[in-house]
């Protein structure tokens, strides 16, 4: 089990396009990844609705946790994505 804390980099928060991109990337990982606010119950990172329901704003800290195959690689890739401004990538 690996985990990492990341600051949300997208200007509109983890919403719409940024959330879709993040969830799609999580679904491609062989590891099972969860995301949540540190100290609170995390949600499945492959669930767009659960990730949207976190309502994470820009600049908020989230914790990613991964277990299983290539867990560390999954965390690195998803943390990079979460920290970048995905609105700007549009």
């Amino acid at each position, binding site marked *: 089990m690996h985990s990492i804390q990341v600051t949300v980099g997208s200007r509109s928060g983890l919403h719409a396009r940024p959330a879709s991109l993040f969830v799609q990337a999580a679904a491609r990982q062989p590891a099972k990844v969860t995301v949540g606010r540190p100290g609170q119950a995390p949600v499945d990172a492959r669930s767009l*609705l*659960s990730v*949207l*329901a976190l*309502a994470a704003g820009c600049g908020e800290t989230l914790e990613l946790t991964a277990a299983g195959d290539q867990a560390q690689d999954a965390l690195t890739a998803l943390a990079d994505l979460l920290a970048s401004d995905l609105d700007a990538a549009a």
Partner: protein
Amino acid sequence: MSDPIRGIGVGTGSAAGPVARMASVPALPAPRPVTDPAAEASAVRAALGAVVTDLDERAARVSGAGAEVLAAQAMMAADPVLADEAAALVERGTDGAHALTAAFDGFRAALVAAGGHFAERAADLDDLRDRAVAHLLGLPVPGLPDPGHPYVLVADDLAPADTALLDPARVLALVTVRGGPTSHTAILAKALGVPAVVGCAGAMELEDGRHVLVHGADGVVEPDPSPEALGRAADRERRRRELLAGVQGPGRTADGHPVALLVNLGAPHELAGAAAADAEGVGLFRTEFLFLDRAEAPSRTEQAAAYRKVFAAFAGRRVVVRTLDAGADKPLPFATSADEENPALGVRGLRTAARDPELLETQLAAIAEAAEAGTAQVWVMAPMVSVPREAAEFAARVRAHGLPLAGAMIEVPAAALRADRLAEVCDFFSVGTNDLAQYTFAADRTLGSLAELLDPWQPALLALVAAAARAAAEHGRPIGVCGEAAADPELALVLVGLGITSLSAAPASLPEVRAALAARTLAECRELAELALLAEDAADARGKVRSRIAGH
């Protein structure tokens, strides 16, 4: 052959084709015990899968922003946690329809509680839930039909959200149970250039695939029309089109009084059609599309690039740009506050500029930059002007950017009543009849039940237009109408008679307006205006003007 069904006609044309109904939202049946939880759970997963397949297929047929929206909705319906939660509820004894509803509503509540952009997704979830429940129950899926061939759309009523998805190449005519002459359906029919019958109580009895003939002029829907009836309608339609095609070029009355005919433009995908239309320019360029669905205002560079495209498409022609009209039905996180109890009466339109002057400054700078790069005649106007001071301050800011023509929208009765003072400080007026009706009659323009008060034929509304037009004429200022009123060929004659100098509408409605003007002199238009002003109410005004036109 069956008896004709009657309603309120919109437009003057006729069209025939097979019916496709827009199904309503399925009612949730009473809860029932689950006998085979495994089978029920797989039916629930299959229903969600069917929603995903529908959305993916639709996404594959469109491009750009539309495809992205549909793909995002498909991702929501394909959510593994959603399916697991619904299946878990079924395992605990809840039937499929209620399990799906509860699973969607759990996420919906979380999004609504989050507020802001997140809450805006709640409507998507409702739509997905209704589609999934319809699939599970074997009912027609709510939403626009897609029979794969051109059709006559029959619905209870149409909302703006439905109609944004309508394919104008497929819809032959519109028939709705509800709605009046100024309802959204009527506006849409005019924009598409198709006939419609609204307020048609018997419409939902028409089955899918049944052939109907829809007459816009007299508000009649003929089921199973005879070949003779179809032939007569086709002949009439051909003559009507020939008549319209016979009048082209700049708008003018029979005696040569010029009335500029312009198009309304509100989205990039409308640009090619608008620029190709036989029109003297754009009478209302709505700029909200640049600002909607964003967390922050677009930069000056981004705005200037968008404006440049429009000005290039209308090189040498007039483009009247309306500055950002945020608020009311178009809330924007960076411009409007979410806690107003009465947004239509709140900080909206030009009023947002008082709170955030930079927003307007950036927009004016971008418009000026784009205008400099092209040859379009760029006019700039402010929405929701109430008092002369606002118009004067706006005009000063517009001119400070080197833009020569600054105007005020007449949408608030106070502006119409003091139009003489407004005319001293700005260069032109544009009457937004929809908002002016809403504020004159204290009637929410989104409420179908108040359609009669919002009818643009209301003599009180016409009296305010007359007052503004008189003041404009005294100061030699042009005054246009850019509301839906301008798309009604008979009302257009009245408006010209009141002193309106330009009419701006959807491109499809201009040919009929142009033909109506070409058939009347300015003196005749003034007589019609007088009749309408003296009428008892909107129906009386419309009736008196129609019978005078028929008698001429």
